[in-house]
């Protein structure tokens, strides 16, 4: 067993001992899943070092690499975990990229300890049909932010928000305390019952400027890239587990005097899902490899065709496998009590976010053309977007 597999087993065992709302047995109460269980999050920090996976050791983290982080996301997806790792780890990654000062080091330490839940507030797509919040200088070196974000993951559980806002016509990152009176968060009913989201309204929220321009861009890149890999990995994990459950079920469920898993139609469906799962796993590893390569040569992550492959495949295949897992469970698969639908909800929700405007495939094509030096209209049209 290699290191990554070992790490996965450790995380899996912990999550089985101390499961999230989805897998505690009995029907899921969405309201319960919407609340963050902070004790559990702290246990994940103290016993597993989860929030600090990639935070440097000098700031209280485990200092692991990209592959390890992706493995953790995969396990959290398998377990339909409702903790704030996805968002908090993005903030951690951004903070590492944004500013190397004591203030941030402190934040990283508190994140690693499970004491600070911080959430990024920016759209996953560069091109997004929504306005960014606006910042203006306030009193005492601070800023004030104004704006509405209709749907922010983990906003309802956040202690702090890392907000990307317009400032003098540029994008800049601001740190906002979630308890500020200028911050209002309204919980939303979500498709994915194990992922909390909230509408965030900022009405002159007091904000600390963290980074502007190039530095901010690096943070944006870290967050987007992390979000893509994280949600893709969750899809792979959820799909993997859903397929296992379905295969286990068809081995024991008997109809017509034999296990339904002995019927060729069922066997072949399972085999096709296995092939799909291998595609998704490969898409994820293509993405990881392209990010590593990219980190070495300093390309912007939006230009990575490899990331686009994961965005297209992990979401779509995750949804396909988890949907078919419902089907393979027959009648009980579409009861609320059975967790099959929770996997489907997670996979679909991630799929929707991974290509939230349906532009990924054509951006991928543009980036392939660009990589081949084709200056067609298309390549140049997308040039600013996909870079090189």
């Amino acid at each position, binding site marked *: 067993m290699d290191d990554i597999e070992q790490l996965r087993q450790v995380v899996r065992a912990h999550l089985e001992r101390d499961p999230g709302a989805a897998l505690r047995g009995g*029907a899921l109460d969405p309201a319960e899943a919407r609340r963050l269980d902070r004790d559990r999050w702290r246990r994940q920090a103290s016993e597993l070092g989860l929030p600090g996976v990639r935070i440097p050791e000098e700031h209280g983290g485990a200092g692991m690499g990209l592959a390890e982080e992706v493995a953790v996301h995969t396990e959290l997806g398998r377990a339909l975990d409702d903790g704030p790792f996805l968002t908090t780890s993005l903030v951690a990654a951004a903070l590492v990229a944004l500013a190397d000062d004591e203030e941030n080091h402190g934040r990283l330490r508190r994140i690693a300890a499970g004491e600070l839940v911080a959430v990024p507030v920016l759209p*996953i797509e560069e091109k997004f049909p929504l306005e960014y919040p606006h910042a203006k200088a306030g009193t005492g070196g601070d800023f004030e932010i104004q704006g509405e974000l*209709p*749907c922010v993951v983990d906003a309802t559980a956040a202690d702090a928000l890392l907000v990307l806002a317009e400032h003098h016509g540029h994008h800049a990152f601001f740190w906002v305390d979630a308890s500020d009176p200028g911050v209002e968060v309204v919980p*939303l*009913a*979500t*498709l*994915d019952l194990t992922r909390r*989201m909230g*509408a965030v309204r900022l009405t002159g929220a007091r904000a600390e400027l963290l980074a502007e321009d190039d530095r901010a861009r690096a943070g944006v890149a870290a967050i987007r890239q992390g979000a893509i890999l994280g949600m893709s990995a969750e899809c792979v994990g959820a799909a993997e587990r859903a397929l296992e459950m379905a295969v286990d079920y068809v081995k024991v469920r*008997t*109809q*017509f*005097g*034999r296990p*339904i898993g002995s*019927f060729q*139609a*069922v066997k072949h469906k399972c085999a096709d899902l296995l092939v799909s799962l291998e595609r998704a796993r490969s898409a994820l590893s293509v993405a990881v490899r392209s990010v590593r390569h990219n980190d070495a040569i300093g390309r912007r992550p939006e230009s990575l065709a490899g990331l686009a492959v994961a965005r297209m495949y992990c979401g779509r295949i995750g949804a396909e496998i988890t*949907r078919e897992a*419902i*089907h393979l469970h*027959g*009648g009980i*698969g*579409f*009861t*609320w*009590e059975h967790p*099959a*639908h929770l996997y*489907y*909800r997670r996979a*679909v*929700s991630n*799929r*929707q*976010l991974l*290509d*939230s*405007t*349906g532009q990924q495939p054509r951006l991928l094509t543009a980036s392939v053309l660009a990589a081949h030096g084709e200056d067609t209209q298309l390549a140049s049209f997308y040039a600013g977007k996909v870079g090189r």
Partner: protein
Amino acid sequence: MTTPATHEAVASEAHAFFAARAPRRERRGMLHGVGDDDVVGVGLTQPDDEAAEVARAQQWQRELFDAKLAWLDGPVRFGGRGLSHDYVELVAGIAAEYQVPSTSTYMVSHGIVAPTILAHGTEEQQRAFLPGIWRGDLICCQLFSEPEAGSDLASLRTTAVRDGDDWIVTGQKVWSSFAHVAQLGELLVRTGPPESRHRGLSVFLIDMNSPGIDVRPLRQVTGSEHFNEVFLDGVRVPDSRRLGPVNGGWNIAMTTVGSERSVLGRAHNGIMIEPVIRLFALARSTGAIDDPAIQDLLAECWAREQVLHETATRLRDAGGPAPGSVVKLMTTSDMEYYSDVAARLLGYRMVADTGAWGTYSWSQLLLSAPSHRIAGGSDEIQRNILAERVLGLPREERPVPEKSA
């Protein structure tokens, strides 16, 4: 009653009836943002408003029945009008032009149970139940599946034991739509020995208010409670409620199941509410309509809808074997396709209910689509039926040997 009907006459009669009772529906066209944004009709009403909806449906059904507009192709002596099936579609199309109450409460009653009684009931049974079912007094449910007998219906274990003029029924049924509001249940039970499979089953029309019946709603993945578990503990059913011969229930059940499948292929069946035109409207509202790739997807949706309805009509008229299986497979595939297109159009708008009209509501279609691939005979069962009964391919080898089909 016996005056010769014409399509024109019935149409204008229907228009007059609906116009007197309900405002005309705005021709929706491509409107987005107006009215109710539910995409899925049947099975999504929440317990809170269900009683009121049932009451509205019963009132409305009674008016329809009294006006002879409820059961156009039914025998006159049971309150029908004795017309051909195309009148049914004519009036359903006209009804859709008005804001009339939903009658989806009667989906099982009229689409599934009534046809079975008409095909297999005695004159007395028909007279006893059909007018009441069509007048809306009797809501029906179907009591077939059991936890251990889903696709393999012939293995069911709920038993009916003869006791004088009655039968005593004990067992458990599941996935029964409308059982929680039904007065009449079409019950398939074992009256033969345990290993008799499909040769030892009988059908009864049971009173759902009988002592010993316990109906417990099952929550679905959509969050609605449309299906039920039904526990039967020593329920007494008079032999006069038996439909067809003792141990001759399998053929009757197959009639029922065939009707169940065919309901899916009908226009205005209430399962999906104008999904295709809504997808066009949604694409217009987001601007996606200008994307040629989206135009291609919408064309596929439109073509699917045309082809489904054409197929349902064509196969019904042709009278060949297992039309319901073809129609059901098409429908479940269409539902999945539409929900995928909706997801593509909505992107991030589908992940949370931000209150925006006609966005998050599509998640209900996405979540309910898988259930249609199981209910009424799984996709796999439908393919077996087509392969064996239409194409004449060999039956599946069965480890449990059967002497005859």
